[in-house]
């Protein structure tokens, strides 16, 4: 045993550590996880990967930094959230090694409070102070005409909203690695920005559905009896509705916005979570440690969410991973059918639908690349879900 492992053993091995140990045993799981992290990085760094504004440019002898000027408030919010998130993860790692277990919970709680308040305040400040700018300067033309020099462009020097009717529907080439679409936008660039849509739909929708599902399931499972009977009938009614068609119907009535799609997917797909949590709470309610917690005089809130929920969360975690894949898929399908986000906002499903052009030509690159993106993302989440389900196997749950 290595020195570090020994030290950890002294501090006790938590359930979480055992699960993560089990999870990384398989190479495939790690590959999927790395792929998901990669997707995140791409989504966060999109403006630096694909942008028609140069990082630096010298115009009339003066240095300009157009990329940074053209960043919008939402970009800054994403950066802030990503940085705080990474710092928080590093802190958790550090806590595990440096902080005495006795105060670890309190320390973690404080860190999370600080992080979320930083994000909260930061987002408000960003929206107040970052002006809305529209930089329509064509820097490439300036470089070509010799007015500007020393320009450093992003690897993919196109904006996602750029239209260029001269280079419409071009197959992959040196200039456009994955070709262009019907209005001449670069496909790779739109794929990169599209990952933002897919990931945020996945996470926000699943976040909404998990919260609703957990709350409903916890109450039904803990109280049982009449509450449970009535609640379950409502859940069953929700389940009997074909969700996809419900979503299409609702979307037809509401304005096409990303937020609406997230909320609609979220509030229509919580039934699975509710049923899982209910079943778990049914079992847990009779467990001795729950009885013991009640006999200590703990309030209901603490019993439900501090003592029962962590023991019954496993199936919801697994379901959430599948849920993210599902939400990404639903968003793609909606966009494919034209109910998704409105152009020019890029979305994978919407790009897919451009595969057959108005002139009837089959543009294979517009079908293949977004299709692959959807395929790999959904598959990665599904595989992680499977792996998580195996790692969370109750056999592991210690006796």
């Amino acid at each position, binding site marked *: 045993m290595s020195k570090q492992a020994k030290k950890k053993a002294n501090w*006790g091995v938590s359930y979480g550590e055992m699960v993560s140990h089990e999870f990384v045993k398989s190479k495939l799981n790690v590959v999927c996880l790395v792929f998901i992290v990669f997707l995140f990085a791409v989504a966060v760094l999109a403006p630096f990967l694909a942008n028609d504004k140069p990082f630096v440019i010298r115009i009339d002898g003066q240095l300009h930094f157009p990329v940074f000027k053209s960043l919008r408030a939402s970009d800054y919010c994403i950066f802030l959230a990503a940085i705080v998130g990474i710092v928080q993860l590093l802190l958790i790692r550090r806590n595990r090694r440096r902080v005495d277990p006795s105060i670890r919970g309190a320390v973690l709680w404080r860190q999370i409070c600080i992080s979320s308040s930083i994000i909260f305040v930061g987002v408000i400040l960003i929206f107040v102070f970052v002006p809305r700018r529209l930089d329509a300067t064509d820097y490439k033309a300036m470089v070509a005409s010799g007015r500007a020099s020393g320009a450093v462009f992003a690897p993919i020097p196109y904006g996602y909203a750029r239209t260029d009717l001269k280079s419409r529907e071009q197959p992959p080439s040196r200039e456009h690695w994955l070709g262009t679409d019907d209005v001449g936008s670069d496909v790779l660039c739109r794929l990169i920005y599209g990952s933002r849509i897919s990931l945020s739909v996945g996470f926000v929708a699943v976040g909404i559905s998990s919260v609703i599902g957990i709350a409903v399931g916890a109450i039904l499972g803990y109280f049982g009896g009449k509450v449970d009977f009535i609640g379950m009938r409502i859940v069953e009614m929700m389940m009997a509705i074909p969700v996809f068609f419900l979503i299409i119907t609702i979307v037809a009535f509401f304005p096409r916005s990303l937020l609406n799609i997230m909320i609609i997917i979220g509030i229509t797909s919580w039934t699975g979570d509710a049923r899982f949590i209910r079943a778990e709470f049914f079992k847990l309610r009779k467990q001795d440690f729950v009885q013991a917690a009640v006999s*200590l005089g703990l309030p209901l809130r603490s019993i439900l969410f501090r003592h029962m929920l962590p023991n019954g969360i496993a199936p919801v975690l697994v379901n959430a991973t599948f849920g993210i894949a599902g939400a990404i898929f639903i968003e793609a399908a909606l966009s494919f059918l034209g109910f998704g986000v409105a152009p020019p906002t890029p979305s994978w499903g919407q790009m897919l639908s451009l595969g057959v052009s108005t002139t009837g030509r089959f543009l294979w690159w517009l079908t293949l690349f977004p299709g692959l993106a959807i395929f790999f993302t959904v598959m990665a989440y599904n595989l992680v879900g499977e792996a998580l389900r195996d790692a969370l196997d109750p056999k592991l749950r210690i006796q």
Partner: protein
Amino acid sequence: MNDNQTLLSVENVSTHFFTEDGVARAVQDVSFSIKKAKTFALVGESGCGKSVTALSIMRLIPTPPGQIVGGNIVFEGRNLLTLSEKQIRQVRGNRIAMIFQEPMTSLNPVYTVGNQIVEAIRLHQKKSIRDAWKDAAETLRKVGIADPEQRVSEYPHQMSGGMRQRVMIAMAVSCEPRLLIADEPTTALDVTIQAQILDLLDELQKQNGMSILLITHDLGVVAERADDVAVMYASRIVEVADSQKLFAEPLHPYTQGLLKSLPRLGLSAKRLQTISGTVPDPLHFPGGCKFHPRCCVGCSDKRCQTVEPRLMEVRSGRHVACWYAKGYEEK
């Protein structure tokens, strides 16, 4: 019955379960009182309602299907049955604590034992986290766990059954309750550990003067440790007495049967006696005295078959519910 020496008095408490198959009268008209700093034992066969009695005192009966249908439970001058949910929460864990039969499953697997003890301490006492952790380690030392500073940060699955039961006890006594309810605290443990745990309870009782309600079906344990005993049969208490008197002269035929089935040193040549028949199902109790189908004294008596005897004082300090007990008469 209420005087300065009484900590808890249970008066005519009945608890029923209203199930689909009918009403299970799990506890009927049960009365007893527990003195300060004494150990009170509740004995009886499996299913006779011991745990339900204990849970009724803590107001932990799952409702529905269960309900405490009558009686009073007076603890420190207050009737626990009329307290609000908030008030009873301040009694639970703080004034009355409980330990359960199954130490393997009584601790939450996702938190360290220290976390769980600290939660119990901080729930009822205003203490900083650091102080509470020191207290937790101190309590663990008190219950005889070696190297407590180390052990506080371990998870339950890293401990043996005996150690977990010690942790349970540590959690229960961390707020210095006046009454500790121990529902078969040693049934799941092996014999040597059983004695250690019971010794520990004795020790803690001497230190902080709490009363113990010890639920068990081990009469040997009762003879050794209890000050007072109540014998329960089919949801009623059939005999209550000082433990020495009870063992010297059992009055109820059921108690007599139980004592005869107790193995004794020196008498090992003879086969142990058993009480014939089985405990009746609480959904289908026999009429009259519930013990009469198994009783060797009154099985053919008309009165035993039709009228149920109540618990009566037959002489000073001896309560019994049997038509045939000497000095028993319905008042």
